[in-house]
């Protein structure tokens, strides 16, 4: 994540706390791409990611006075957005009820779109199609680097469940990656 000069960051922070709308927009602009990519990874669609991002930044501006300058502002913003995204996932439990056998998992489909290349966008799109439980734990463990114990505490599950879900997430990803992109170790 790109940082800001400490003095500029302090000035931006002070203006944001004073309710300066242009400063708030500058802060939003500064962290928008990184935070949106984070939200995209945790959501199942672009629109849901936008909802997460919006709620997350609202929380950031609401709690900005609680930020202590010991750490980096970017790290704190990331924590807030991540926490909001997780709350968002807990809140919106979409339940699909198939009728007459119509609903089926569309299965692998992204493979043809990747055109034998894998970049952040396509990997993100792939993650969005991953079942929500797999996706959350995969993100928290692999991308964010949280240990299973901490993930378990954050999500209110057991550490063994977290490990199991991660294992399944890896298998799910393995089955859907284009063969030509599979990594040779």
């Amino acid at each position, binding site marked *: 994540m790109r940082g800001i000069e400490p003095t500029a960051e302090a000035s931006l922070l002070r203006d944001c706390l004073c309710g300066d709308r242009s400063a708030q927009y500058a802060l939003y602009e500064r962290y928008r791409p990184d935070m949106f990519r984070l939200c995209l990874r945790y959501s199942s669609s672009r629109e849901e990611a936008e909802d997460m991002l919006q709620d997350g930044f609202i929380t950031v*501006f609401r709690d900005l006075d609680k930020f202590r300058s010991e750490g980096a502002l970017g790290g704190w913003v990331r924590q807030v957005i991540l926490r909001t995204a997780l709350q968002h996932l807990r809140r919106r439990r979409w339940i699909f009820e198939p009728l007459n056998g119509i609903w089926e998992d*569309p299965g692998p489909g992204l493979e043809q779109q990747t055109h034998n290349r894998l970049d*952040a*966008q396509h*990997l993100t799109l792939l993650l969005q199609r991953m079942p929500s439980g797999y996706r959350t734990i995969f993100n928290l463990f692999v991308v964010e680097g949280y240990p299973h114990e901490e993930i378990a505490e954050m999500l209110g599950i057991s550490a063994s469940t977290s490990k199991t879900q991660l294992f399944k997430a890896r298998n799910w990803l393995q089955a859907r990656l284009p063969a030509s992109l599979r990594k040779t170790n």
Partner: protein
Amino acid sequence: MQDHTNPIPNDEELRRMLREDPGGPAGWDQPGERVWQGIEADLTHMQRRRGAWWPWIVGALLLGLAIGWGLLRGTENTPGHHGTASFAVTSPAKSRHAATPTTAHVESPSNPVPATASTDAPETSSIKKEQPEVATPASRPETKAPGTKQPAPTPPVTAAEIPLRAFLPEASPSKDGTRRSPQENIVALSERRPDDRPGEPTLVALPRRQRRLEPAATLLPAIALTLPIPPRSPRPKARHEFGISVHGNGVSTSLQSRQGAFRPAEVLSREQSAHRWGLHYLLVTPRGWIVGAGLDHLRIREGSRRVHEISFTRQGGVSGAQGLSQTLPMTMHGSMGQIRASLPVLILERMAPLDYQEGETILLNVDWNQRLDLLRVPLWAGWRWQRNGWFLEGRGGVAVTMPLSYRGDIRQVREFRNRVRIRERSSIENPEGLVSVFPEWQAGLRIGLDLWQGWQIQAGFDFWRSFTSVIDHPEYRSILQGQGLSFGFSRQIGKGQGQ
């Protein structure tokens, strides 16, 4: 050589790719403009409502305290229950013993009491129409007891030096035409204040030996001077009531545009209900005035069914080789705030590859069940008529209401050419635009009955309505109102009398 047992990049590569490599075409990681617009709208709303919470609470509490204090003060200063005959006792300030010669004056404009002196004590009394500022023995008529020696002239006594006023409580004519207290042999004493107003009265029972002096009421003050003042007065006091009540309310909401009536065309049906329970405190003055406050929990439910006609395009959707997935952003305005829902929609081209044409209409039925919990702080004032254990009470007041929580359950059923039917459910707990606090006014009638040991049962009818809109939206406003029956119990604390 490919290793299919571990086909995906290792964690470090994935982490680097996802966190640091922007990848992809330009703009794929840029959110739409609506995100900042939503943030900005919320920031504006937040700034507007910041600081608006506590002034309402503090203002309401201060108003309640002021009303209560005013009623209490009015009750304390009303001498209505304390006699029409008033006696001003002049005596040397320190002489409160029978052995000390005492002079008693009767001040009774409305109730001339015969100055009958028949006592074995060497005392002198007289009747005066007005309370003199300075009373001297020479300036007032006196009735001398026969055979008694004229006491030595006492120095002039000013009103400020007179320590006590004495009067008969609730004097009424007796058979012989004189006036005496309905509570015979009782005299009321009160301390004289610098402004010559009577202080808090104290009823004093005369000793048995002196009860034979009736109806020599003029001597009562003098006799009373010899009596110790009991620490408490049994005068009627305000009464406190604590209670719990349950209200079943019909509730209605009106969602209107700022410019005029607004009727969402897609709403097919709507059901609303509310119930409330709460704790309350009432102060009932001896004259029947009431003032009270409480704490209520109010739950409002609303269920509505809407029908939307939607269509999809591939634009904005995530298309795969065998399916089209698209999220439909939907905003629904309701009387309890507006919610934005991103409804995920998956068009199964694999199952019906030829059926769906882009832009074709799909019927979307949405059942929207909302539940809103509110905390109310009501303040009442009113009047209570009480007779034979029954009371009838009218009350009105204001309330400060704060939304506590919201839950909206959305169930949608999509139908497409009678072949594709998909149900989805979702829950939303944060509606947008719901104000953090709003004022209400309320009115009600109540009937009650004393049961036993201070317990009362009561029932009544209440009506309430919000002063202002409960949603903060530039185009719409929503007024909440409810009416219904209430039922409750209360317990009286204190021995005060109502009317």
